[in-house]
C-alpha cells in the first residue's frame, strides 16, 4: 500500500522531470512533421498517468527488508562504483579481486571463503576473458 504510493509519487516526479527535459530538446531547422519532442511527450505523459494510477490502485504487498540490508546493498553499490572507476587506471585484477571479495562476503559472511573466492575469480576470469575471449583487458593498468 504505502510502498506503491511512494513509488507512484516517485514515478510522477520522474515523469515530470522527463517531460520538462523533453521541452528542452533542440529542434533544429529541419523539423519533420512529427518532430523530436512528440514521442518523448507521449512517453512522459503515459508515465505520468501510470504514476497517478499506481497511487490510486495500489496492489503490492512487499516484504521490505530491514535497514541493515539496505546498508549491505549500499556497500555493494559503492564497491561496484569504485570498481567502475578504478578499472582503467589499475587494470582488471586488483579491483575485481577487491569487489569480488566484498560481494562474496555480503552474500555469505565468511571472510576466508570470500578472500579465496575473490582472488581465484579475479585471476581466473582475467585469464579466461583476456586470453580465452580476447577482450583486451589490462592486468594491472
Amino acid at each position, binding site marked *: 500500500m504505502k510502498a506503491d504510493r511512494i513509488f507512484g509519487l516517485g514515478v510522477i516526479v520522474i515523469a515530470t522531470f522527463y517531460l520538462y527535459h523533453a521541452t528542452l530538446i533542440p529542434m533544429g531547422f529541419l523539423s*519533420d512533421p512529427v518532430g523530436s519532442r512528440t514521442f518523448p511527450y507521449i512517453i512522459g505523459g503515459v508515465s505520468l498517468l501510470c504514476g497517478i494510477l499506481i497511487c490510486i490502485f495500489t496492489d503490492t504487498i512487499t516484504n521490505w527488508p530491514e535497514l541493515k540490508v539496505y546498508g549491505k546493498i549500499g556497500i*555493494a553499490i559503492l564497491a561496484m562504483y569504485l570498481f567502475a572507476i578504478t578499472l582503467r587506471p589499475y587494470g582488471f585484477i586488483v579491483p*575485481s579481486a577487491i569487489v569480488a571479495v566484498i*560481494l562474496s562476503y555480503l*552474500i555469505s559472511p565468511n571472510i576466508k571463503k570470500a578472500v579465496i573466492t575473490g582472488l581465484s575469480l579475479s585471476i581466473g576470469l582475467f585469464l579466461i*576473458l583476456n586470453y580465452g575471449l580476447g577482450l583486451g583487458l589490462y592486468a594491472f593498468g
Partner: protein
Amino acid sequence: MDLVANLSQGFAVALTWSTLLLAVSGCFAGTIIGSLPGLGPSNGVAILIPLAFSLGLDATEVLVLMTSVYYGAMYGGRISSILLNIPGDEPALMTTLDGYPMAKQGRASDALVLSGVSSFVGAFLATIGLMLLAPLLARVAYLFGPAEYFALYLLAFCTLGGLASRNQIKAALASAAGLGIAMIGLDNQTGLPRLTFGELALMDGVDFLVAIVGLFAVSEIFIFIESHGKDTAIGVKLEKITIPVKDIVNSGLTMLRGTLIGFVAGILPGAGASLGSFLAYMGEKTLAKDGDTFGTGNPKGVAAPEAGNNAAAGGALVPMLTLGVPGSGTTAVLLAVLLTLNITPGPLLFEERPEVVWGLIASLLIANIVLLVMNVPMVRLFVKVLSVPPYVLLPGIAMIAFGGIYSLSGSSHDLILMVIFGLVGYFCRKLGVPTVPIILGILLGNNMEDNLRRAMIISDGDWTYLFSSGISIGLWAAAIGGFVAPLFLRNLLKKPKAPSQ
C-alpha cells in the same frame, strides 16, 4: 536437381575433418560466450576478426567457424536465462519467463533439453527455408517501407499489454520507461542530441546489453544479499537428467508455430531475433489452450521463444546475404566478418559466389547438428552451475559482465550505468514491475519512432500514408485485433468466473 547439386557442392566444401574440428570448437566457444551475460556477438567477432586476419584461414574455414560461433551463441543464450533468470543475450530474454520458473521447480534440465531441441527445430527449419526461398524472400524486404515497419512495431507494442498478467498499469509503465530510455541519444532525423544532459557517453544512447546486465544480473546480486538465496533456483534439488519426451511431443506444434513467426520476423531487416522470439512467445500464449499458465513454468513458454529466436536468426540471414542489410545485432557481426573476407553480400551473391553461399548453408546445417548432439550431454555440465555456491557464482557473473561491457566501450560510464540499472531492477522486482518490457522498449523504441517520422517526412505529414498499403493495413488490423480485442474478451471471459472465486 539444382538444389541437390548445390547442396552437395556446399557439403563438399564444408564437410572435412578439419572443418568439423573448427565447427565443434566454434559451437563450444559460441555456446559459452552466448551463455555469459554481458558477452554477446560483439565479443564473438572480437575473436573472429583477428583470427581471420592473423591465422590466414581461408573463406570456407572462417565461414564454418563463424556460423558455429553464431549459432552456438544463439543456443547458449538460453542457458543463463533458464538457470539464473539472467538472459545471456537479448534474444534469450523471453526464455526467462517460463524457463526460470521451471528451474525453480527443479526442472532445469528438462527446460534445457526442451529448449535445446526447440532451438534445433527453429534453426534447422529456418536454414532449410533460407536454402529454398532466399532469393525469393529478398523481395519481401523491398515491400517494407517506413509505414509498414511502423505498423509492425506498433503490433509488437500492442501485444506487450498481454505480457503482464498481474498489473497492467505497471507493465505499461515498464514499457514507457524502456521507450523513454530509448529516446536518449542522437536523434536520427535532426542530427541533434536528445535528453543526453550534455553527456558525450549518452550520445549513442543506452546500450541494451548494459540494461540487460544491470536489470537482471546486478539486481540479482542485491536480491541475494537481501534473501541469502531463499527464493532462487540455486541449490534446488535437481531430478535426474532425462529426455522430457512428453514435453517435447506436446510442444511440437508450438515449435513449428514459433519457427514460422520467428522466421518471418527474421526476414524483415530491422526486426530481428528479439522481435521474433517475443512475437513467437506472445503468439503462443494467445493460441495455446493452456496459455494462461505462461509465465509460471509452462514448457511451451520455453519452446516457443527458443524456436522463434533461432528461426529468426536463420531468417535474418536472408536480408543479410541477399541485400547486405543486417537484420539484427548478431547478423551485423556476421556481415562484418564476411566483408573482412572480401565477400560482399548483395543481390548477386547467390550467383557470383555459389561456393560461399552453399558452403555457408552446409555449415549452418552442420553446426546445428553438432550443437544438438553437444547440447544434450552438456546439459549435465550446465546444471552443475546451480550447485556452485552463490557466493562464488554471483560475484563471478558480475565480474564477467563488467569485463564484457567494459571491453566494448573502454569507459566507466557504461559500468556505472549498469549499477544504476541494477538498483532500478531491484526496486522493480520489489514493487512487482516487470523488467522484460523495459528491455523491449529499449530494443524496439527507436525503430518505432524513426519509422513513423520517416513515413511522415516522405508523405509530407499526410497520415493516410500509414495505411496506404495492404501490408500495413493487415498489420494495423492485427495490432487492433491483438490488443484491443483481447482486452474486451478478457473482461467478457473473466466476469462469469468472478462469482465462483
